[in-house]
């Protein structure tokens, strides 16, 4: 057993354990806490997979942003300090059935696939990946390049004039538009209505 396996074991257990605890807990603040554990350990798994940029983003945006937002939401929407809304036994049984069904389906499908074969098949037919593979462990710079639409990691070895590999310039830019729109929407929903007499403002518009 090497260090990587040990670390994987720890992080995987924490991730799964946190997720199971989220599903079983009824107190919503504790759910948020276990979510932190689960997502934080998942970012550990990302680091193990050499995706340090994704791991750090997960910590910054997911754990440090989204979960804080969730806890903030909990604080604003619970009237008692530690409110529990317990699920009914029927719901619990129903969800347990769903869970068992999904997990068994997983073993029936994804688990029994020969992934080595799948990866090799795709690799054989992928002419671009082999040219300049990601030999180094660092992903920050290639990811940044891909956001600008340039894929030196794939295209440098290709012949001139070939169609370019997928760059992510468009989503990178358009997501900013999405964030703006969403921000406006969320701000609208969350703010109290300002007290302006509509008649007055209406008269000012030609």
């Amino acid at each position, binding site marked *: 057993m*090497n260090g990587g396996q040990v670390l994987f074991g720890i992080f995987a257990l924490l*991730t799964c354990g946190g997720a*199971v605890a989220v599903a079983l807990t009824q107190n919503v603040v504790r759910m948020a806490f276990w979510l932190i554990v689960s997502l934080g350990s998942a970012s550990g798994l990302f680091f193990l997979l050499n995706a340090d940029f994704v791991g750090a983003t997960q910590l910054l945006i997911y754990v440090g942003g989204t979960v804080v937002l969730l806890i903030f939401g*909990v604080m604003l929407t619970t*009237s008692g300090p530690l409110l529990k809304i317990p*699920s009914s036994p029927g719901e619990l049984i129903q*969800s347990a059935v769903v869970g068992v069904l*999904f997990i068994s389906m997983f073993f029936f499908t994804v688990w029994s696939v020969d992934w080595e074969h799948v*990866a090799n098949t795709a690799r054989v037919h992928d002419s671009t990946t082999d040219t300049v593979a990601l030999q180094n462990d660092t992903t920050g710079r290639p990811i940044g390049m891909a956001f600008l639409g340039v894929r030196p990691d794939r295209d440098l070895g290709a012949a001139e004039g070939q169609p370019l590999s997928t760059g992510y310039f468009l989503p990178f830019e358009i*997501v900013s538009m999405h964030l703006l729109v969403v921000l406006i929407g969320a701000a609208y929903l969350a703010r109290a209505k300002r007290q302006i007499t509509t008649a007055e403002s209406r008269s000012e518009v030609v």
Partner: protein
Amino acid sequence: MEGVDLKLFLLVGAVLFVCGVICMTSKRNGIGVLIGVELVLNAANLNFVAFSRYTPLGLDGQIMALFVIVLAAAEAAVALAIALNFYNNHLTIDVDRADELRG
């Protein structure tokens, strides 16, 4: 990752997914349901990153995961604003009490 099979990562992802789905179906607190959604999205992210390491998906997997993180944050912002608005109108966040619209 030497010595760890891709399947193990996929298994962790599947556990996250199942827990998320259970959360979505069983929780009555609106924010609890949203927490379940976050778990499901994270399961997909774990898949993406694991695939990016083990299959020719390569860097694209990581990039997709990054976009998913950002989109999930945006979705959570709107969902919380809506939950807050619901609370202001109904003085509860229990989704089972949202039963005025029925037919």
